[in-house]
């Protein structure tokens, strides 16, 4: 049975340390093409431009902590449930190795980071998934951390905000993984019953079991420009149906047109939108920050 070889970080994590982590999800060593407009970029150019393509504005994937720090008030984030780590409950081939590699590469314990923070002075429960950690797949730990964050929000009457990014359920944990869909959805049920505001932000890519559970059950669902959002992945659809996919299929703009998103917000303006929503939710009596 796998035991984590290092003590997980608790509470505050230094963002500068995280920034150094190479973003392996969207890039290769040296130069690489922008997935949207195919312009060639270097890692340095990308970082310099706040993880956007300098030519077309494509939103490159960013890590969970960058997400959180990008919208929260300074020094307000406290990580919680950082001590949870995945086991290999089915003794699934290669799973332990993959986990170890993901931990090493991302300096994260799992594909989601959760905790409490303040945004524009409003206390919130917050979480962010990290696509670099095994494609942001949801296993027991992701499901458990999200559930705890939701339950905390319900108990303490806090708004709950989550940045989603996931390839779906983590196959290596079998049905334990699939059941996290039901578990997190049930927790959202309690959150709504408690009257908490729930905002879900769907980033590139959000697919499979995450889209079909907590991610699509929010009061306000925000998409990032160009993000791929759906249940079945586009390649599988193409292979299964033999159909050519329509242009823009499963992109945030397509989802908005089809009624699934409340709005699309560029990453740099995400914080101001969240502040506005939280202000209004509180009764409109707070000044915007």
């Amino acid at each position, binding site marked *: 049975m796998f035991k*984590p070889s290092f003590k*997980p970080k608790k509470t505050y994590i230094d963002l500068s340390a995280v920034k150094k982590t190479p973003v392996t999800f969207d890039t290769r060593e040296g130069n690489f093409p922008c997935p949207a407009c195919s312009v060639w970029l270097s890692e340095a150019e990308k970082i310099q431009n706040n993880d956007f393509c300098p030519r077309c504005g494509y939103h490159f994937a960013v890590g969970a902590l960058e997400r959180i720090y990008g919208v929260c008030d300074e020094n307000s984030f406290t990580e919680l449930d950082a*001590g*949870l*780590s*995945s*086991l290999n*409950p*089915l003794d*699934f*081939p*290669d799973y332990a190795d993959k986990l170890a590699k993901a931990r090493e590469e991302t300096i994260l314990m799992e594909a989601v980071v959760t905790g409490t923070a303040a945004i524009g002075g409003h206390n919130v429960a917050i979480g962010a998934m990290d696509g670099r950690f095994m494609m942001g797949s949801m*296993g*027991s*730990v992701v*499901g*458990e951390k999200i*559930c705890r964050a939701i339950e905390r929000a319900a108990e303490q009457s806090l708004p709950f905000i989550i940045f989603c990014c996931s390839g779906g*359920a*983590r*196959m290596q*944990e*079998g*049905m*334990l993984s*699939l*059941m*996290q*869909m*039901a*578990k997190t*959805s*049930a927790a*959202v*049920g*309690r959150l*709504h*019953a408690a009257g908490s505001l729930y905002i879900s932000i769907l980033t590139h890519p959000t697919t*499979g*079991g995450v*889209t*079909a*559970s*907590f991610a*699509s*059950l929010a009061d306000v669902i925000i998409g990032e420009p160009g993000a791929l959002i*759906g*249940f*079945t992945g586009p390649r*599988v*659809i193409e292979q*299964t*149906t033999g*159909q050519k*996919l*329509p242009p823009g*299929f499963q992109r945030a703009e397509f989802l908005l047109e*089809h*009624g*699934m998103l409340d709005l699309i917000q560029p990453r740099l303006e995400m914080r101001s939108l969240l502040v506005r929503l939280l202000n209004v939710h509180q009764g409109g009596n707070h000044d915007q920050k």
Partner: protein
Amino acid sequence: MTRNKFEFESNYRLLESKLAELRDLSVTLNCDFSNEIAKVEKRIAELKAERYRHLTPWEQVLMSRDLERPMTRDFVELLCTDFVEMHGDRLYGDDPAIVGGIAVFEGRVVTVIGHQKGKDTKENIVHNFGMPRPEGYRKAFRLLKQAEKFSRPVITFINTPGADPGVGAEERGEAWAISQLLLGLSQLQVPVISVITGEGGSGGALALTVADRILMFSNAVFSVASPETCASILLRDVKRADEMAAALKLNAVSLKDMGIIDEIIEEPVMEPLLSSQSFTQSLRYSLKKHLDEICGTEIPDLLEMRYQRLRKIGRFHEIQ
């Protein structure tokens, strides 16, 4: 079940035909050892039954997908009276991959919802191979809310390869329709019991399997993804699906060990399910027993138990 579903079946067929040749020869040569032959025959039959009783996970996957397995309408006909089928989501369409309605089961009015595949290719196209589109899930949701209004317990029958992987299903919010059911069932103010009767394919099956009790046929499976999908993604070799079937722990015994299902209904060996009286009796008995239990529980307690049942699923390590 006469079609060749598994590789091992041809071995037994070979043995049987060889034995028949031997018998023919003995008659021709007027050399009687029919007693001995009968014993060999019996032994082969025993071994074959034993083999059927111990299908590999991959064989169970194939078994669970068998189109000869009864579907929701068959179970309703077997178990219920006065069935009235209800159609449509009142939003966009009626999805033939999900069947639902009200009926009487053992003196109780129940809402029954389940997947429906076809028995042949033509029927399968009508029923979209049992793969629901969003309107199927939304029809189910509507019927569940109706069950709630009239305090009717709900029985769901699960047998689907998964949700429809098509363009239209994505356009109309397949993920949204599924999550609405997951949340809706978790809060539904009536008892819910699910029976996994065949293929329990991924989120598309889970959407109707949030319940107070989950029963499962012994050769049914319930999996996070199809073994083929896992093999193609994780091993980049779809031919190794049988390995994945074993690794995924997708059969009834494994799922009972994990606490995901409550009871296994033993399938008959080498006999169509509904022809076996012991099978249909134990299905009816188990359904009634569990239904009696959950119908005797106060709704707030039931909902708390339903929540905790899900809440505790997952295995992880925690450092305080």
